[in-house]
């Protein structure tokens, strides 16, 4: 049995410890907001936070998160209030929407580390997240918008 915390909830799962965290979240815990895109850390659709850092959950064995704190898109906010979610809505970012959980989770780590990111910071933090619909220009705008909200004290 492996125990860890997901979105502030303690969970115990009975799975093969080599199972990627992604599939434990999706199949064992019913948290389907985190997506499968490639299975080899190429696309970023499966990005979650492990103790606050971005983690590609498709290649992380669940054993690696034992005793640690995992946050998924479902835990970003309970009510769409995270500045990034508000900015994503304001900029009408998503098209198909499939990659956006991963995009948001990567962006959340970026803004925590660099509250006033530059274009280069955004490139560095977001290049691991593919969007086949091509929402990159709006994602960039939304990150700047969220950064603006957070400096104005809009952050929770």
């Amino acid at each position, binding site marked *: 049995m492996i125990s860890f915390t997901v979105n502030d909830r303690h969970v115990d799962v009975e799975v*093969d410890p080599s*199972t*990627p965290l992604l*599939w434990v979240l*999706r*199949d*064992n815990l*019913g*948290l*389907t*907001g*985190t*997506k*499968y*895109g*490639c*299975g*080899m850390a*190429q*696309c970023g*659709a499966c990005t979650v936070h492990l103790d606050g850092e971005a983690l590609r959950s498709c290649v992380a064995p669940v054993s690696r998160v034992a005793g640690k704190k995992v946050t*998924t*898109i*479902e835990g*970003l*906010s309970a009510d*769409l209030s995270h500045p*990034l*979610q508000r900015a*994503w*809505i304001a900029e*009408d*970012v*998503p*098209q*198909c*929407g*499939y*990659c*956006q*959980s991963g995009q*948001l989770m990567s962006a959340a780590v970026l803004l925590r580390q660099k509250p006033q990111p530059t274009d280069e910071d*955004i*490139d*560095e933090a*977001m*290049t*691991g*997240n*593919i*969007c*086949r*619909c*091509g*929402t*990159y*220009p*709006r*994602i*960039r705008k939304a990150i700047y918008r969220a950064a603006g909200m957070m400096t104005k004290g809009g952050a929770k």
Partner: protein
Amino acid sequence: MSAPLLERREFLKFSLAASSGLLVGLYIPSGTKDAFAQEASTSSFMPNAFVRIGNDERVTVIVNHSEMGQGVYTALPMLLAEELDADWGKIGFEPAPVDPKYNHPIFGMQMTGGSSSVYSGFEQFRNAGAAARAMLVAAAAEKWNADPATLRTDSGAVFDGANRRLTYGQLAEAAAKMKPPEKVALKDPKTFKLIGKAKSRLDTPEKVNGKAIFGLDIKQPGMLTAVIARPPIFGAKVRNFDDSHARAMPGVRKIVAVPSGVAVIADSFWQAKVARDALKVDWDEGTMSGFSTTQMMQQFREQAKSPGKSVRKEGDPEGAFASAARKIEAVYEVPYLSHAMMEPLNCAVDLRADSCEIWTGTQFQTVDRMSAAKVAGLPAEKVQIHTTYLGGGFGRRANPQSDFVVEAVHVAKAAGVPVKVIWTREDDMQGGWYRPAFLHAIVGGVDAGGNAVSWRSRLVGQSIMAGTMFAEAMGMTKKGYDPASVEGADDLPYEIPNLGIESHQAEVQVPVQWWRSVGHSHTGFATECFIDELATLAGKDPYQFRRDLLQKHPRHLGVLDLVAQKSGWGKPLPKGRGRGIAVHASFESYSAQVAEVSVTEGNVRVHRLVCAIDCGRYVNPGIIAAQTEGGAIFGASAALFQELTFEGGRLQQTNFHTFPVMRTNECPEIETHIVENNEKSGGIGEPGVPCTAPAIANAVFAVMGKRIRKLPIRMTEAV
């Protein structure tokens, strides 16, 4: 009350009729409360198949097109809400079930494709809204004992002359008893409150909190997950397989042979995947085991040396070429491409003795239902498809053989349990149905005055339509070529007096399919690069040269002029940068783009892309910009990075490391400018794609003096 699904014969007839221009079901009065309205309370009002109004004021628009990112769950409700005078804040949407009343008005089947959802639904959804509005007004008139003509509507309520107000929710029950109008008057476009406005997408909130349900997210009681070992080579068959190791693995419930391979069914995806990988399958490799795309392209080059089936001929292209003052010959090549939607294919099936329920993100409900019914051994009306969100479609989820649906029904049938089939990324990329590889051999010439006098283009590639139910509807036998192979080449808008377009249909056993912008994805590249080469030959500016040849095509000219102006065409650029231009019409819309690039150590960097789009009357400019820019990025990925190659019958690419998609650090600055006019509405999902590759290639020429004739762009192959 659902009508029996069209049988194949009837369906073909229907498609034929549709293709000859007959519009079916422009307005479908229904008045029925069908099974699909399962959530409706008894007091809800469903005046027709497209809208339901609850006594809680909620207005639900039933959308007959699939949401794959292109914004139909917002744009189509906008059309209906406009005529209904609904309160936009109370609008919701839900996917339509499969039913002939939700057939595409042009194609005569329920489907999403051809960039046609909004323009085909433009009147349909407006009419549905206007009809509902008329019934609500009639109900209010009855309550107030007033003449309906004296009443007005606004923001979800009916008002009388004294400004008394009844909300749509309050009127829902009474309106349900009103007779649906036979004819309705539509608003004067000058009074539109929603159409033409950048309303926020209705599906955004659930796409930023993980709640949106895609096919991959479906979980039904008792549902297991299947992963399938499919042939490593197209046409290979299972000779036998050894599942002794796989069967003993944790969570594995069943292992069954299906026509497409061997399915491993387990409690969870990872268990199924690991066990699938542990299968030992002995494949009969079939006839494709020696297949190589290098050899295939060599054959295409040989084929292009002889005349093909004539598609269009004006004047004497050969003679004019022979006598041209200056001439040029060019061969353009594009590879097979994967759609590579972010959500790999998947399909969930619950097959019972007398029913088959399917959950999947599909673009092709009618065809999938017919195909699934056949495998299930059930009448079509016993098959229901729940259309989930699509994690990208780009054409792949409209498969003429319903490959991913049929396969899942086979698995459910063989396993006897509800099952969700999930394709890994590798399965998806290697599973076929690609954009076909194409070769365009073009010759052309200019006279002494620099006027284009000849253009002869020979296209070689596989037909997408051959063998599908659309082949006859598109008149393939009669024409002797596939219109989808030559679209965008045969309607070359440039006024060139001697013009020949010829088609060679290549017979290759690689499954091919429509890929965002279909034939235009390669004809746009070849034609817009060659016209640029002719401009150079004529010693003229590429923009002016195009302009001169487009004088009879005002909408082409409109986008061309707009993009030239907005991009600062002709103005100086920093050293090392160059601009390229392209213009191309597709899916009833007109697109032009200018790319600004630099080339460093053989690497092409696109710094800026300026897009102009004319899609006639439009619904939501925010979505138009998003689709145009997304299309351009899709086109740029193909131009710069993507190809599928085969050696020894095996595809060489497996995942995003070998089939790259443009990433944010490579993404240029993009801007979109929309032409304002009142022309008939055109498509928007695909027209952004075709111009990007030629605009980039022409920009590379501007900066390097070398022509790009092969995609993806490699400077080592430039000429």
